[in-house]
């Protein structure tokens, strides 16, 4: 039996596989598990579908002016639910490897842990930003069709609409990275999901009851609140930071979690 092609006589160092090898390997890994297409499909259906549905149901009331909420808050309504999928996908990219022992194969193939992490982050963020933007666009097109019929539709060129489309992509990417960073720290899918979803959906709303300025600022600064303002032309919550200011805060939070995760990842035994 011949196993290979005489490479074992090789004494010289094999050529480095090129700067994009790790990135391409992570890309292959990302798209060859079923959780990826499922999460993205769920994001699209929830995000675009719920936006369209809610706009269809509320268009008439909105047009009468008896809702008391800005129309701009409705054209990206479904993103609140679509973000769950970004969190799931982000967490799984990391915890999926720890749960299965895959992390050892990954680090044996690419011992430079920083490169592995950077490649994972790039694949995740690029995919989520495209998927998030497409989801928001589809929701806007679907929902706005009903709003237009009532004469209250928004044009893509209206204030904040295009920004919210791209912003939905950016917010999804940031949220996925946040979940991946938490995943690096806890190395467990359920724990990572509980922490991130708990922060975004539960803690993010609970802090509003803190007294006075504490409650106001905690609400402004929680990641789900700070980051999501960019994903809607006009928010339901007037207390939130301005979209880009909030997003800057959110990015800082994501970077902080990822940085701590990266340090731990770099030191820990696989």
């Amino acid at each position, binding site marked *: *039996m*011949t*196993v*290979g*092609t005489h*490479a*074992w*006589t*090789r004494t010289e*160092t*094999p*050529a*480095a*596989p*090129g700067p994009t*090898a*790790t990135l*391409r*390997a*992570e890309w*292959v*890994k990302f798209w*060859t*598990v*079923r*959780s990826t297409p499922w999460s993205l499909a769920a994001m699209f259906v929830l995000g675009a579908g719920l936006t369209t549905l809610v706009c269809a149901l509320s268009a008439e009331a909105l047009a009468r002016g008896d809702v008391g909420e800005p129309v701009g808050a409705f054209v990206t309504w479904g993103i609140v639910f679509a973000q769950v999928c970004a969190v799931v996908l982000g967490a799984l990219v990391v915890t*999926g*490897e720890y749960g*299965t*022992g*895959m*992390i*050892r*194969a990954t*680090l*044996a*193939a*690419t*011992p*430079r842990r920083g490169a592995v992490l950077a490649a994972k982050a790039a694949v995740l963020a690029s995919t989520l930003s495209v998927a998030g933007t497409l989801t928001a666009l589809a929701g806007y097109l679907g929902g706005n069709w009903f709003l237009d019929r009532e004469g209250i539709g928004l044009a893509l060129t209206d204030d904040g609409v295009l920004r919210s489309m791209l912003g939905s992509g950016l917010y999804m990417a940031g949220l996925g990275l946040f979940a991946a960073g938490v995943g690096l720290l806890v190395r467990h899918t359920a724990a990572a999901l509980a922490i991130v979803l708990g922060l975004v959906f539960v803690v993010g709303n609970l802090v509003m009851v803190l007294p006075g300025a504490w409650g106001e600022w905690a609400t402004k600064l929680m990641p789900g609140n700070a980051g999501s303002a960019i994903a809607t032309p006009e928010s339901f919550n007037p207390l939130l930071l301005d979209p880009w200011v909030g997003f800057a805060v959110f990015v800082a939070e994501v970077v902080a979690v990822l940085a701590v995760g990266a340090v731990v990842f770099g*030191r820990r*035994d*696989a």
Partner: protein
Amino acid sequence: MITAHRLTKTYGERTAVDGISFTVEPGRVTGFLGPNGAGKSTTMRMVLGLDRPTSGSVTVNGRRYADSPAPLREVGALLEARALHPGRSARDHLRWLAVSNGIPRARVDEVLELVGLTAVAGQRVGRFSLGMGQRLGIAAALLGDPPVVVLDEPVNGLDPEGIRWVRTLARDLAAEGRTVFVSSHLMSEMALTADHLVVIGRGRVLADCSTAEFVADHAASHVRVRSPQHDEVATLLRREGLDVAAHGGELRVRGLDPAGVGELVGRSGLLLHELTLVRSSLEDAFMTLTADSVEYAGAPR
């Protein structure tokens, strides 16, 4: 070549690997033998740069594994357990590994063929039997056509045909001039596969020698004697300076071969019912050697 120098790994209070030094030479199969919990897998993870040594060093072909620009082309490894995502197909698993180290795509199909998984290459590995998983792990180890091959417990979960296949493969790889390092807790398997043995227990090297030497040094033998004149035979042999132990109706004689024992008894006119050379198995030798270093011994029954 793999060189470990005073390699040590501690987890809190517990020392898993305690300053071990050894060399794994090319062109032969080196067995890495020890009971469960002896530190084999920890050592192998340190070889692959997955775990960081507490002190000491281990190098592959003169440098740390992590410093290789394309490690899969220098060291192929089958890791303990299954370092696989159950939802990915066998081919996709090998494909990302190939991409990560700049290994040509065609090599994926070559190794699938080599381990006999071509027909199921498109199936998700979560459905694989333990044996198929081991074969896929071996395919991954051979993907980069590496000069050094590290296999951690490769025969776990394999049927007899699979065990023979791994044994032949390991020997073929060594015959091709590669460095082959195979861990196992099965002495009998290593006796058939390995040319050289590094035996560890409780994180220390207990023996580092050729398999033949190990057998000669550790596999004790005795002559079993049965006689209706049990006591007279025992007295006679003891008088000749032999080590005689009585076990029920038999005598176990050490210090002389069966021919010598038979002649002594015959010349004295005593009767013999049985005269047998009993070699204690390698497994026994291994058990004796590592008896003090077994981490989780069962209570005696």
